[in-house]
């Protein structure tokens, strides 16, 4: 049987197909079908010839197998230094092998490659910093995922995630109407506490266009209210687009290149339509990478930049605190040991390490902020990056991967971990659930709300 009914080479294009795939509990049928999925080796080889550009080709060739990358990989370290977890080995044994065999690989090989691509690499890009040649295995795995997706060898949740983006232009089944309605609902809930609070939808020429993560809309819309409140207190001229509001991209994790382009273009269209001075995205790491760093290239933008200047939420917070738009009540600063999770996707990949620490200098009473070791651009992945958090069949591997972060946190002595990234936040929540080390974790927004001064003219009157 070349193609399964659920597991096949066709992307999810309709709501019905999405529902059918979702109804397959744990992807049971899906993975069963995958066992007999045929490989279209001609297509695979043709794709490689068309898309494997000089950088990746060079990287594959010049790897000296020196092993310097081994110790840089937290998955290698946590898995008892298994040689099969050495980044260079992992990519040579998969992408390297496919190229050497000119795409002539079998089903077992593709299964192995799928597990390697999604359970042995979180695309954290740490190895790239330690390779004497500057070879970045994370980037190559991102590319490999694309090939695997094309051939249908992609974890069930990732196929669903990419399908969500194709159907809803969001990572979850949240429609544009749901988004606007939910944001307005949240404003209703908080407008008594913050007189004048509103959500300006589709306002042209605003200073800030705010984009979010669909999970905020679906499950914890308080996050939307908190974002609105902070913009309101800072006196910002802001807006949200009624279309193109989703900043994340599970399509990127899935390797669905076409869906990546569709998703990011929806956000760029919103920028072009509303012409904001800047876009600010929510506290999410991969969303920033997808929309701000990689997205311009997916969308074929020559200058490598989104249509409007785009910054991460932490950049906005730091700026608001620096310029005094938001003022922290010194009495309410955090007065217990607190540490900061550096998200790979905007720290290592976008150099925002000093910005987040600047925020800490305002929020935390001097003497209470502690660093993890290692930190900043050398920090380890939370353990759940690159889609790892969401994949059921690789849960045991993921849980083991969390131990790195668990021990980093324990060694720091912190009681509270500030994680301005959805994936990191999830991974830290999960590690608390799994290993119960008695820590708390938080995004920036609720902490900021609990400590910012409300200007007199914005205070609620009883």
């Amino acid at each position, binding site marked *: 049987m070349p193609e399964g009914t659920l597991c096949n080479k066709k992307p999810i294009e309709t709501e019905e197909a999405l529902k059918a795939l*979702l*109804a397959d*509990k*744990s992807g049971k049928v899906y993975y069963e079908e995958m066992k007999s999925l045929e490989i279209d080796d001609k297509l695979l080889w043709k794709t490689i010839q068309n898309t494997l550009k000089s950088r990746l080709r060079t990287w594959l060739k010049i790897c000296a197998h020196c092993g310097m990358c081994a110790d840089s990989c937290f998955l290698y370290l946590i898995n008892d230094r298994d040689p099969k977890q050495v980044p260079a080995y992992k990519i040579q044994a998969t992408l390297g092998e496919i190229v050497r065999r000119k795409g002539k690989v079998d089903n077992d090989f593709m299964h192995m490659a799928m597990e390697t691509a999604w359970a042995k690499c979180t695309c954290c890009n740490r190895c790239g910093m330690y390779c004497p040649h500057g070879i970045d295995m994370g980037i190559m795995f991102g590319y490999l995922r694309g090939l695997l997706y094309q051939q249908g060898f992609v974890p069930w*949740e990732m196929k*669903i*995630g990419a399908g969500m983006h194709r159907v809803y232009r969001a*990572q*979850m089944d949240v429609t544009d109407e749901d988004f606007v309605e939910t944001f307005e*609902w949240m404003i209703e*809930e908080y407008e*008594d*506490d913050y007189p004048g609070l509103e959500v300006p939808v589709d306002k042209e020429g605003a200073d800030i266009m705010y984009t979010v993560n669909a*999970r905020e809309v*679906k*499950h*914890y*819309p*308080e996050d939307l209210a908190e974002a609105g409140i902070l913009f309101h207190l800072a006196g910002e001229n802001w807006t949200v687009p009624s279309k193109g509001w989703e900043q994340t991209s*599970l399509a990127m994790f899935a390797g669905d290149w076409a869906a990546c382009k569709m998703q990011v273009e929806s956000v760029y269209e919103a920028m072009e339509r509303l012409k904001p001075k800047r876009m600010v995205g929510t506290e999410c790491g991969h969303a920033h990478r997808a929309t701000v760093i990689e997205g311009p290239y997916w969308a074929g933008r020559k200058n490598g930049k989104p249509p409007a200047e785009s910054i991460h939420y932490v950049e906005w917070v730091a700026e608001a605190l620096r310029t005094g738009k938001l003022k922290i009540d010194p009495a309410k600063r955090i007065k217990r040991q607190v540490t900061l999770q550096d998200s790979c996707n905007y720290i290592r990949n976008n150099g925002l390490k000093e910005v987040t620490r600047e925020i800490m200098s305002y929020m935390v009473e001097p003497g209470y902020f502690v660093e993890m070791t290692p930190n900043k651009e050398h920090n380890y992945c939370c353990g*759940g990056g690159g889609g790892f*958090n*969401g*994949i*059921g069949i690789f849960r045991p591997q993921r849980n083991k991967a969390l131990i790195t972060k668990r021990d980093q946190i324990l060694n720091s002595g912190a009681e509270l971990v500030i994680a301005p990234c*959805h*994936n990191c936040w*999830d991974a830290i*929540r*999960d590690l*608390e*659930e799994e290993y119960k080390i008695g820590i*708390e*974790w938080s995004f920036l927004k*609720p*902490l900021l709300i*609990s400590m910012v001064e409300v200007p007199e003219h914005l205070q*609620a009157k*009883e």
Partner: protein
Amino acid sequence: MFKKILFATSASLASDYAARVAFDMAQRYDAHMTIFHVLGVPTRGYSQVVLDVKTGEKIELDDEYVSWVEEEIKTYYSRQLETAGDFEIKIVVGFPHREILREARDSHPDLVIMGGSTEDEGVSVYKKSMVGSTLQRVAKSVGCPILIVNRPAASFWGGMSSVVFGTDFSKASDAAFKFSLKVVQALDCELHIFHALDISDLHLGKLMTQDQIETKIRESLKRIRGRYIKKLVKGQDYSFDVWEGIPYIEIVKYAREKQADLIVMAHHTRKMDAEDKRLGSNIEQVIVRAGCPVISINK
């Protein structure tokens, strides 16, 4: 006036007293009741795994599991459901407070009924990631009156005949008064209007003399007359009083003395403080302590 009741339940011990009141009210007032259960908290972002709120287990959600939970609920309330009239069972996934608020917003019930805290049933990780209990969050934001039953409501079995309205003379209290009026008129009850003069805060600063206390009590009695008594319809059975003390204790005592079947109060705790996860405000303390259901009105 209670034609549509939304009974939000954990289908566990914490909701048992509330269940009694909910089923009784639905039957007595011939109401449509939605038995609303939030099955689990979504976990791991985009994965399909949820954490069952009751068992704490990680489960993969599908129709089969949902119908199993529905059967569980039917079994749990089998005795009450035998005689129940118009009801439906709704099961959803999400964070409990958010889903209850969503349902209340969509279906516009006349009353939301909830039990006390499930805190004693084990603290799961999801609770740590949110400030405030489900009850606090729902009471703060829900757009209709919410009735909470935390302890066995002994006198409730005879229906409602005595309502205590506790006021702090705030705007929110005016709304609570309006609602109390509607209840006592519709259900033909006595209304007892009560204000507690808070002397608890004063211990630290200065001690009030008894003369000062009594002057304040007289002032408050005057305020009650001016603000509420004037608005009562003719023939309404009522009384009013002002006692000094710790407000929530005094309200509970007063309700006990009046054999209240219901306490109505305004909820206007603005901020939820991360440091204070215990039920903080007066009404929340009243909810925990009162021997009868408490209705909270927030706007």
